[in-house]
């Protein structure tokens, strides 16, 4: 059975039987992707965790209201986007900016300090964070979540061709950013 059909069956069970186990399966399937999607928008672990939980809770509420859902993945990304917007409205401006201190205390970052590639990775990460939202979303979905352009297109409501163009431009922008920062470093 295809993933989409499986998801439809899960949706049916959630909406008609309030089946929480089916909801758990949706959670398992999407938690990492949604967390990452939110994380790149708020850049703080605790905020990303709270907002991801809120996203799933809103999904549950939405499904209980009996509204039509064609693709749960696309709906989840849309809810996550709204949750982040609401969060930014609630919080003071600048509060959600990532800080150098936070990066410094992240265990992975410390572990990576011993690894030669740390600088390269942090440069790529910094460049990805500088990208406009459309590019960043497509890039993380494609190369971090490992989704095919066709799947990304469904999730973001665009055509696969459009996604390929966005991915190409996003990679070019990252490369340009890295080249310019390298050039500045050499000066």
């Amino acid at each position: 059975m295809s993933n989409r059909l499986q998801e439809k069956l899960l949706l049916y069970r959630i909406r008609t039987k309030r089946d929480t186990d089916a909801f758990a399966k949706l959670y398992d399937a999407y938690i990492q992707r949604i967390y990452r999607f939110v994380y790149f928008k708020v850049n703080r672990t605790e905020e990303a965790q709270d907002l991801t939980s809120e996203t799933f809770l809103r999904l549950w509420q939405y499904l209980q209201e009996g509204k039509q859902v064609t693709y749960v993945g696309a709906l989840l990304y849309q809810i996550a986007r709204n949750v982040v917007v609401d969060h930014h409205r609630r919080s003071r401006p600048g509060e959600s900016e990532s800080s150098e201190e936070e990066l410094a205390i992240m265990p992975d970052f410390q572990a990576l300090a011993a690894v030669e590639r740390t600088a390269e990775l942090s440069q790529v990460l910094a460049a990805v964070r500088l990208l406009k939202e459309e590019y960043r979303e497509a890039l993380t979905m494609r190369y971090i979540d490992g989704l095919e352009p066709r799947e990304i297109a469904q999730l973001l409501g665009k055509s696969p061709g459009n996604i390929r163009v966005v991915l190409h431009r996003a990679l070019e922008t990252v490369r340009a950013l890295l080249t310019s920062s390298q050039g500045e470093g050499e000066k």
Partner: protein
Amino acid sequence: MEKKDIVNNLQILGRLHIGGEPSALWISDSREQLLRSVREDAASRPLSDASPRIRTIRGIFGIRDAMRLVFQTSGVLAASASLLFGSVAGASAMYGSVPGDTLYPLKRVSERAQIALTTKPEARARLQVDFLGRRVQEVTRLNEKPFKETARINEAVKELRAGATSVEQEIVSLKKESPSDAVQVAQYVDQKSDEYQAALSAPIADRAIREAKDIVVDASVKAVAVIIDGRARGETIVPEEEVVSSVGEKIAAVSARVVSIEESLSSETPSSVKSSASEAKEALTEAKSLVDKQDLTAALVKVIEGKTLVNAAESIAHAQREAAALVSTTSTLPGSVVVPGTGTVLTGIATSSFPKFVSSTPASVSDVTTQNP
């Protein structure tokens, strides 16, 4: 750096927390917490009947899939059986939680989600009014506990105030978009506030209840102001008798508080309490006469004036009672001396020698029941 190196680095980042990889511990904790709250929510919602079920199937699968699934009887029969025999009642711990409970943040998140998902402004405003009722319940629940936890009660009152502000903001924004809807919501607030005030039935001397009641009365007075304004602008067809009756109810509610103050007057009551109560009475008498003259706006202004004076009188009386209680408690303790005429207590005694007396704040967490009601 070449494109393939960028892609390679992105893939490595995906496996690290800094690249947005969630911690496994958080995933499992969050999963558990989320499922607990959705289970509670599922238990508190009745299952829908058959026709919405078929609509649901069509909504999800499309008509062909729907027909196939409808006739796959096992699932449907099981669902029907659960409809007929299943028990869907049961108190929800999440919805019964109060500030300070573990589940309380989830309850608030769930409410925020409901509000965010409500697209119609009028429905959203009504939802905020309903949630205000929950805040009232939380204050009363905490206040009814044998050991009063001041910090939690204060938090509940703070939440109630925030809830009243949200209702007010919703009405203000609704007024710009659809004045007639704003008036309807204001009527709903007025109607619900009677219910909420009745729920806050503990003695008015209780500070938290007094504050909570004041927030509710304030919300209802503002709601009546919106109704009166809507009528004056011709934005609503609320009958005049209904508005007169609403203003009359506000006058009666504040008057009852004046009577309660007057009944508690004694020779020790500060003169400011007596004078504030008397001025409040005058303002309310004027309000009544303005209602008789059909000047509802001016009457409401007088009600607000009376309410402010009553609040002041109650606050002074409450502070005086608390000071008297403190003096009487400490004066019975060995080593304490009350300076005559001033009420000042000289102590200089070891706290370990104090007899145990009931405080509004528990001495330690173990003194407090943390179970949900």
